[in-house]
């Protein structure tokens, strides 16, 4: 038996032993376990599952063991992922630090920064928020005016960031700030870690069309930030940011991971709600055909992910290919949401006030997911990148 096969069997046995049955079903938003000092567990099972994974470092499977991570190779991590999927194990931990800051810090952080922050991320002790966009910046991330004045041993930060996810409950925030106002747009930017408990930090929620407000605007009013919290070079923050954005995009391509996992089961939904022909087929041929097209695309996206993984392993991956994932994944998710809404009919028009929590969740997700083709690089930016870097069309 190969090493990988035995790793698979061990992992399978361990998961069987440690993942409570209640944690083996699609996650709902209310039961996600987010990192941070304010976090709570929805159930004893959830706590037990989280702690088992945390203690193996499998909240961050590929990070080095000496920093608390799982120390797995990428092939082992994939096996873990597959085995978790097989059992439908819920993700043990949700955090922007885990998904985005951590990988960047492992590349650009000082030994001290790594030693301080990485283990706390792995253990879910700190909830991180992302402070990238200044209001009005949109896709042009580098047009930011939040400034940090260098005072030697500390910076003084003033300005405001929007789209800071749940900054109201975050412990720390990683920020892009302008440290050299005279440099060209992408230069003169630095990457700072800021404790949300610092004096001068405040937040306000931004209401969304889904009726939720998980995003905040965060304000910095002459906040003092120790120089030790600078990641990368002074005025070299753009490089760190780019590294981090790569992880964000990867994440956005499989956005369901982050948002609550509602497996709508489009076909079951349709068959239970729509008129069927004598042969048991959806009688509305127009809608039936569009459902088929969506399912084919969803399957194919899965196949595309597999192809990319195989290509990577074989060292013959067309580098253009991964560039397509975010655009395809988010676009297809929206198509699915629209189909779901159409199938729900009148019941799909209520976001609140009904007696079906599940239906309302589907409808709120329909609205919420409109953000997916915007956040983390708009579809338009993605298409520019595909056209130029992927296809080689001229700038």
């Amino acid at each position, binding site marked *: 038996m190969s090493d990988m096969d035995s790793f698979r069997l061990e992992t399978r046995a361990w998961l069987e032993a440690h993942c409570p049955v209640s944690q083996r079903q699609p996650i709902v938003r209310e039961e996600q376990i987010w990192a941070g000092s304010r976090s709570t567990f929805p159930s004893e099972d959830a706590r037990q599952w989280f702690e088992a994974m945390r203690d193996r470092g499998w909240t961050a499977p590929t990070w080095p063991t000496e920093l608390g991570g799982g120390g797995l190779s990428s092939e082992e991590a994939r096996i873990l992922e597959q085995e978790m999927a097989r059992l439908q194990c819920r993700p043990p931990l949700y955090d922007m630090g885990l998904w985005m800051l951590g990988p960047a810090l492992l590349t650009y952080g000082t030994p001290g920064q790594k030693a301080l922050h990485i283990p706390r991320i792995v253990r879910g002790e700190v909830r991180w928020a992302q402070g990238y*966009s200044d209001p009005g910046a*949109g*896709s*042009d991330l580098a*047009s930011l005016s939040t400034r940090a004045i260098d005072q030697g041993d500390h910076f003084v930060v003033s300005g405001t960031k*929007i*789209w800071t996810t749940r900054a109201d409950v975050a412990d720390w925030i990683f920020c892009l700030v302008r440290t050299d106002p005279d440099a060209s747009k992408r230069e003169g930017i630095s990457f700072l870690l800021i404790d949300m408990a610092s004096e001068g930090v405040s937040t306000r929620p*931004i*209401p*969304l*069309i889904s*009726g939720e407000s998980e995003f905040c605007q965060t304000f910095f009013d002459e906040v003092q930030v120790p120089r030790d919290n600078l990641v990368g070079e002074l005025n070299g923050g753009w490089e760190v940011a780019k590294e981090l954005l790569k992880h964000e995009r990867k994440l956005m391509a499989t956005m369901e991971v982050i948002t609550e996992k509602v497996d709508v089961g489009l076909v079951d939904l349709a068959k239970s*709600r*729509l*008129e069927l022909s004598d042969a048991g087929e959806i009688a*509305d*041929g*127009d*809608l039936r055909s569009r459902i088929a097209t969506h399912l084919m695309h969803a399957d194919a996206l899965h196949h595309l992910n597999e192809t990319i993984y195989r290509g990577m392993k074989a060292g013959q991956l067309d580098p253009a290919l991964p560039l397509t994932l975010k655009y395809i994944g988010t676009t297809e998710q*929206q198509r699915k949401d*629209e189909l779901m*809404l*159409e199938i*729900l*009919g*009148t*019941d*799909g*028009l*209520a*976001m609140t*006030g*009904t007696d079906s929590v599940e239906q309302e969740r589907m*409808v709120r997700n329909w*609205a*919420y997911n*409109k*953000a997916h*083709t*915007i*956040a983390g690089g*708009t*579809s*338009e930016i993605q*298409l520019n990148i595909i056209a130029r870097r992927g296809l080689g069309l001229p700038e």
Partner: protein
Amino acid sequence: MMILNDEQRMLRDTIADFLAKESPVDALRALRDQEPELAWEPSLWSGLCELGAPAVASSEAEGGLGFGQVGMGALILETGRTLCASPLLSSAIHAQAVIRHCGSPAQIERRLPGLLSGDTVASVAIQEGSQFRPAPRGTRRNGNTLSGDKSLVMDAGAADYLLVSALDEAAQFCIAVVHLNTPGLTIQSQRLMDGRQYGSVSLEIVEVEEWLEGEAVEQGFTRALDEATIMLCCEMLGASRELLDRTVAYLQEREQFDVKVGTFQALQHRLATAYCELELAAASVFNALLAMDKGETVLSEHASRAKALVGDILQHLSNEAVQMHGGMGVTDEMDIGLFLKRSRTCNQLFGNSAFHRNRFATLRGF
């Protein structure tokens, strides 16, 4: 675009001014935070009635203002631009049309004046279950009583009476006039995502005030539904146009990477094709209004073509508008999301695009 005569143009401008003052988009924002029992702002409705809005299409012989259906269409289009919530569609258009096309002369004489002045408000209850099907299935007459369940009844809880489609003991189509305070009638009012009031109506052996019945009633009901569908299309056109205008204006102003976002050719082409589709849909709606004013009585093809085309472009433009407004488009601080949600409700009302493509094909014999 619609080509209007001088009177219709004046009417449209008057209404546009009125709505800008009395019913800007913020009025809907305020309404949706109210209890679902409030279906519209009373002062807004009385203002519209003072202007004669419910009687715009009606002929002078009937006691109306005689602007024709084109006039009414132009008015409704303006209400779509500001997301104005009023019983114009439910009562002044749909219920009026049902009375007009299905009522006996005596019933018309008794009921129409109140609907024309707006003193009375009625709503039509058609749909059963979550999918639109025009034919009643489970709503049944028994003697002089009615039982069944109706869904998505516009403004139901705030109406004076309902016009309920049903089948009689011989499975013949009929329409019941049911007053709201009749025992056995329960209305669960709900604000849907568009911020407006809809009722789920439950009828348990409800005493019926009177019946619209006879051979011509089913056909008249279809005609009334087609007329209401065409008018709903006018509202949807207004919303589409507003979405396009606001998006163009935003792109004219907004800068990214040191250039106006509106200079990006990919966005230009997307908006240009959307504009083409919008104008195609608009031409079809306008043609339908002209057909009504010319006295055509079979309007089903017009209605299905218009609803499918307008439904598709409104859905498309609402998505495009959100996307092109970027992050701001998904916040509730901007109005775009309100249009997005209204678009989805309008698409369901009276049958969505797929329903009407299917109906159109059937009407055309394939």
